[in-house]
C-alpha cells in the first residue's frame, strides 16, 4: 500500500447499492447550545467524505453521532440499514460495523500493541485468539508497525500510535471508518505517515467519513467535501468544486484562513 503524493485515488463509491449512512434532519443540543441544525447527508458504500469547517462548527459531534458516542435528539440516523435508537442490540450491531479513529489515539495504555488490536475481535466477535492475532499482525503490517507489537503504546511515537489505532479499528473488519481529526494531535513530521496509511485505506474501497483540516488529503482521496459552520452543512461538492469555485462567503473565508496556515 504505497501512496503516491499527488495521484488522486479513483472513486470507488457504489451508488447502486443501498447507502452506508443516511442522516435525515438530525438535530442536537448541548444544553441550550444548538450544535447540529437539520443536518441531512447520505454517504454511499465505498464513498470517501471529508468533513471540514472551523472549530466549534459541529463536525466532530456529527461523526460521533454516527456511532452514537453522542446521541442526537431529533431526526434519524441509519447506518448500514439499521436505525440508531435506544435499543442496545442495534447499537452493538452498528458499533461492530463502524470503526473509529480519535484525535488523541485513545489506545489502551495497559495493553501491548498486539493486545490492543486483538481485544475487540476476541471479546466482541468471539474470534479464536490465534486467528485474531494473525489478523492483527496482517493489519499491523499494513500500517507498517509489525516489529513493535510487544511494546506498550507509551513507548511509541504519536504517529505510530495513531497508525496502531487505525489497525485496531480495522481488526474489527468494519464496513465504515470514521476519523475524528486523526492528525491534529501530531507533530508535523508524523502527519504524512498517518495520511499515507489513510490513503492506502481509501485505495482499498473502504467507506470513510473523515473530519480533517488536511486539504491535500481531501483533494487526493475525497469523493465529496462537506463544509460545516455553526452546526449546519453550508456547502458540499467535489474537492475541485469546493476549493476552486466556493459558492459561499463562509467557505471562501474558511479556505483563505486554512490555506494561509499552510
Amino acid at each position, binding site marked *: 500500500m504505497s501512496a503516491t503524493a499527488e495521484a488522486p485515488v479513483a472513486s470507488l463509491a457504489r451508488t447502486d447499492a443501498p447507502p452506508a449512512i443516511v442522516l435525515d434532519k438530525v438535530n442536537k443540543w448541548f444544553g441550550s447550545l444548538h450544535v447540529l441544525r437539520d443536518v441531512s447527508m447520505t454517504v454511499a458504500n465505498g464513498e470517501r467524505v471529508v468533513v471540514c469547517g472551523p472549530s466549534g462548527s459541529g463536525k466532530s459531534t456529527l461523526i460521533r453521532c454516527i456511532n452514537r458516542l453522542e446521541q442526537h435528539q431529533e431526526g434519524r440516523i441509519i447506518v448500514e440499514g439499521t436505525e440508531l435508537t435506544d435499543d442496545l442490540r442495534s447499537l*452493538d450491531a452498528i*458499533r461492530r460495523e463502524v470503526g473509529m479513529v*480519535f484525535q488523541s489515539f*485513545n489506545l*489502551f495504555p*495497559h495493553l501491548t500493541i498486539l493486545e490492543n488490536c486483538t481485544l*475487540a475481535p476476541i471479546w466482541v466477535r468471539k474470534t479464536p485468539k490465534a486467528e485474531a492475532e494473525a489478523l492483527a499482525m496482517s493489519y499491523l503490517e499494513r500500517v507498517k508497525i509489525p516489529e513493535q507489537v510487544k511494546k506498550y503504546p507509551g513507548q511509541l511515537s504519536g504517529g505510530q500510535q495513531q497508525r496502531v489505532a487505525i489497525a485496531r*479499528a480495522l481488526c*474489527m473488519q468494519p464496513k465504515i471508518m470514521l476519523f475524528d481529526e486523526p492528525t491534529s494531535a501530531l507533530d508535523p513530521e508524523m502527519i504524512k505517515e498517518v495520511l499515507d496509511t489513510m490513503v492506502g485505506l481509501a485505495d482499498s474501497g473502504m467507506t470513510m467519513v473523515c473530519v480533517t483540516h488536511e486539504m491535500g488529503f481531501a483533494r487526493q482521496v475525497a469523493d465529496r467535501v462537506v463544509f460545516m459552520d455553526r452546526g449546519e452543512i453550508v456547502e458540499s461538492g467535489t474537492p475541485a468544486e469546493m476549493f476552486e469555485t466556493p459558492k459561499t462567503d463562509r467557505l471562501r473565508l474558511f479556505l483563505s484562513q486554512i490555506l494561509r496556515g499552510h
Partner: protein
Amino acid sequence: MSDITAGSTPVPTARRDAPIHTSGPIAWLRVNLFSGWVSTAVTLLLAYLIVTRLISFVDWAFINAIWAVPGGNQTQACRDMKGIGACWAVITEKHRFILFGTYPYDEQWRPLIVCLLFIGLYVVSAMRRFWRAELGLIWIVTLAVIGLLMWGGVFGMPYVPQERWGGLPITLILSTFGLAFAFPLSILVALGRRSKMPAIKMICVVYVELVRGVPLISLLFMASVMFPLFLPEGMNIDKLLRAQVAIILFAGAYLAEVVRAGLQALPKGQYEAADALGLSYWQKTLLIVLPQALRMVIPPLVNTFIGFFKDTSLVLIIGIFDLLTAGKTAIVEPAWQGFGVEVYIFIALIYFCFCFAMSRYSQSLEAQLNTRRR
C-alpha cells in the same frame, strides 16, 4: 562549542570534571547540616540528643534487659530493674498467650499453622506469576483449611469453640476476610455510584454516606448489641461473624470512594474507544476501565488497607480477643502487672511487620506497573 562568533573556526570545548565539593558526602553535609552557625548549632544539639537517647534505649532494651525469670512468674528481679532494664521475660513467659489467647494450650500448634498459612497466602497472592484463575482456588482451599484447623472436631483434633479463639489469628481473620470481601464490594459500589440507573446510584450513595457518617466503634456496637435484638428468639449469629460483617461494610464504604477516584481519573477517551469497538458494559469495565483505574489508586488503596488492618483492634471494645486484647489481658495477672511497655512494644512490632510489608509491596508493585507504561 559555546562561543559562536561569526567567522571563527568552532573549537570543541574540552571535557572537564565537575567542580570539587559540589557533590559527595562532605559537600552534602556542608549544604544540609552546617550551612551557617544556626544550622550548625541545631545539628550538634540534635545529634547530642539522638545519640544519648539511643544509648539509654540500647541500655534499657538490650544491655540491662532481663530475658527470663526463675519459676516463670517470680518477677522480683524484673521489679528491681524497673526503669533501668526491660523485662522481656514477660514476652518469654506470655508470648503464647499474646499470640493465641485462650486457645487450649496443647492445641496451639493449630493457630500457629493458621498464621503461617495466612502469611503464605499473602506471599503467594503478592507474586504476579500466581495472578491466574487458580489463585481463587488457592484462597478457597486455604481458607477452608484455616477454618478446619481453628474449629477442629475432625481428624482427631478436639473441637475448639469460637469463644476460645484469640490473639493473632483473630486479627488476621478479621482483616483478611474483611478486605477480601470489602474490596470487591467497594468496586461494585463505586461502579454503582457512577451508574446511569437512578435506583442503583441512589442505593450506593446512601450506603456510602450512611456508613461513612458513623464511627467504626458505633457500627461494632450495633453489630454486637443491637443486631441480636432484631433476630428471632433462640437464633444467634456468633459475635465474630457479626463484627466481621461490620468491618466489611465499613471498609467497603471507604474503599468505594478510593476506587471511585480512580474511575474518575481515567480519561474519557478510554471509555469512548471501548464503546466505539463495541465492547459491552462489563467487557469495558473489566478489561479497560478497572485495570487502569485500580492501578492509579494503588497508594490510597494500600493506605486504606493498612488503616483497616490496624482498626481491627477496635473489636476489643465488644470483647473479641484479638492480638491487642490478648496483650492487654496478659498483663492483668498480678505477677506481671506494670510490664505493659514491653508487651505493647512486642505487639507494635508485630503490627509494624505486617503494615511495613504491605507498604513496601505496594511501592514495588507501583514501580513494576509503571515501567511497563512508559
